[in-house]
């Protein structure tokens, strides 16, 4: 069956529009419960984050709070933002620039006891790069910016 040219062009246009709409609908459906929101310890303590859902927690690693478990690979530490603190448990190798008193973003889930189970830890990558969520919290970062300008 050969469709008439005009007819076929119409079908192609409709298909293209349907594809774009389909992509948008699929994306919206997918984003609804798969986007990981970013929270600060204050948000978590205020109950803004729900448990069991993928999220990110960002703040500073509290000085003196880093402890390592007996197994040698599980680390517990407190993340604070000046207002509140949340206990983070992470099993894995910490990034090279993970330091007490410096910025960190933890990816993971909030457990029922409101502590945070991290499956990935992002720290400041080098003196110039850091997660933008932490951009305002670091005087050192600002100094770096000024130096560049």
């Amino acid at each position, binding site marked *: 069956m050969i469709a008439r040219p005009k007819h076929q062009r119409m079908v192609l246009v409709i298909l293209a529009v349907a594809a774009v709409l389909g992509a948008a609908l699929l994306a919206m459906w997918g*984003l609804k419960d*798969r986007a990981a929101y970013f929270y600060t310890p204050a948000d978590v303590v205020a109950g803004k984050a729900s448990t069991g859902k993928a999220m990110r927690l960002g703040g500073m690693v509290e000085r003196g709070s880093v402890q390592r478990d007996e197994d040698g690979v599980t680390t517990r530490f407190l993340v604070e933002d000046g207002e509140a603190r949340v206990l983070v448990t992470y099993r894995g190798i910490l990034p090279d620039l993970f330091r007490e008193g410096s910025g960190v973003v933890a990816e993971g889930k909030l457990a029922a006891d409101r502590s945070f189970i991290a499956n990935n830890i992002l720290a400041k990558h080098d003196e110039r790069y850091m997660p933008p969520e932490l951009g305002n919290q670091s005087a050192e970062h600002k100094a770096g910016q000024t130096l560049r300008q």
Partner: protein
Amino acid sequence: MTPEAGLAALWLAAALSLLGLFLSVLHVRGKVEADRPVRGLAIVQGLLCLFAFAMLLTVFAQTDLSVALVAENSHSAKPFIYKVAGAWGNHEGSMLLWVTVLGLSGAALAIFSRRLPSRILIAALGAQAALALGFHAFLLFASNPFARLNPAPVEGRGLNPLLQDPGLAFHPPTLYLGYVGLSVAFSLAVGAMLAGDVDRSLARAMRPWVLGAWIFLTLGITAGSYWAYYELGWGGWWFWDPVENASLMPWLAATALVHSVAVLASRNALKAWTMMLAVIAFSMSMVGTFLVRSGILTSVHSFAVDPTRGAFILALLGIYVTAAFVLFAVRAGNLREGAPFELVSREAAIVVNNLLLTVILGIVFIGTLYPLIAEALSGEKLSVGAPYFNAVAGPLAILLGILLAVGPLLSWRGESRAIMRKLALPALIAATTLVIAILALPQAGLLSKFGLALAAGLLPAAIAPLTGRNPLHTPLMTWGMVIAHLGVAVAIAGMASDSAFTVEKLTAVKPGESVNVGPWLVRFENVSPVGGPNWTAVEAELRASRGGGVHVLHPQSRFFTDPPTETNEAAIETLMSGQLYTVLGKSDGEGRWQLRLWWKPLVTLIWFGGVLIGLGGLIAFLGHARRSWRRKAFE
């Protein structure tokens, strides 16, 4: 004087772009005959960019610290190769490389595409000059790579150690050749819509550019994936990082374009559609450049936050994309009708391929930009990662893979062929694999089970178009298609195998202790200090065995002095059956060291498949070049 010479060349190139744009408008309107001047200007403009880039390489090779860019990104103690590669390992240098490739593309278009009607070629060169002009302005006003420092510092600030890697020397230039090569497809589409009609000769002129850009994008993405895999030490090969998506989006559009331009060249169909895709493909390159270069994303690749630059690139992106879309909306209706085609034919299969790729592109695009839009609109911060992309785009990729088995066996114009017979065996293999995977791998994800089945069926199906043909009389283009499709099957096999069979072990051990990971027994012998040109490290010695011989691995934890940074250097043992991937973590101060080990069966197939896809593209490219050369010789 070297930096000043480079800067002068850039200004001159910008002026010539403006002149070229002006003359091409006059030529297309029929006011003057400017065919030769416009072509000449495009060539000289490209050479001036190349000269400026050579000047930048020179100041980096000499570590001329009076140049701000060198002082900020280089260091006299750095190995020579990284001094040179450091020229494009930063914002300004990489934008200069971008503009250089853009200029050289325009020059090559002026030299090689003379078979096009003059109005279309000159209009395309005008579009290329307009692109160059905008990006020259960006370089000169917002990203001058040649700015001087007074007084010059005594020592440079060094280069991010993550970037001191052979991968760096290869990865960005390859990607840029792909990104910017698509600019020619964009300019040709704009030129054809402005100055004439779209026909097979336009498709033939566009095809080498699309194919070439697509080959470079394929190889660039493959290399980038392997770089992230071994350099980050996280054991993954794709992180759905926005910067990775920035290279994936143009690739998806270019993949669709490679197929639709073939339909246009062979069947004179899909005219407006192909023009649209050409515009989208380069728009995605510019979106990618914006994402990477504006620094607005959370990403391991983003280095500095500078809003003026982001706004500049966004403005350029907005101007070019809007202009091209308006032109398309006005002119698409005037294009002559393409040839109609059958419902079951290779053309129709390519339409479905294009629709699926477009939907996947839309999903990646929305997922990548959603965090930015959400933050701008509601102030909410969020990130979108693997769970979204895998769940939403994964099933569509599987559908695309199934189509890949069928499409090449259909003929143009839909003449019936015995394709069911050729597909019976692959379908049987795929179904059997799926059943086995479901029964034997209860813990593996659904997507990896389907991936394994798809790969098993695709391997024979990809070769099926060759059956019944004399290999010596099969055109190179067919060989290229078969090899590229085989590469897709191989890459899917690697991805599915990595996700279904990988075994991971995370532990802390003392020297002399052993760990099991998959079939391997890994003995942690000792740690010792080692040193390099600008780093020191602790290095572990691991002895891995499985039955027979012993493999020795040396994962390191490196400390760089300029700038002060630590990195993990994973040690990877590559075997036919897979890779043993080892990372040395921190010491607990009591003699134990953290070790993270993975056994990844067949993981290397991912990159081997990527290289095969690129190789297939290259063979097809050569096939087309030979045919076009013969046609020319015949005339």
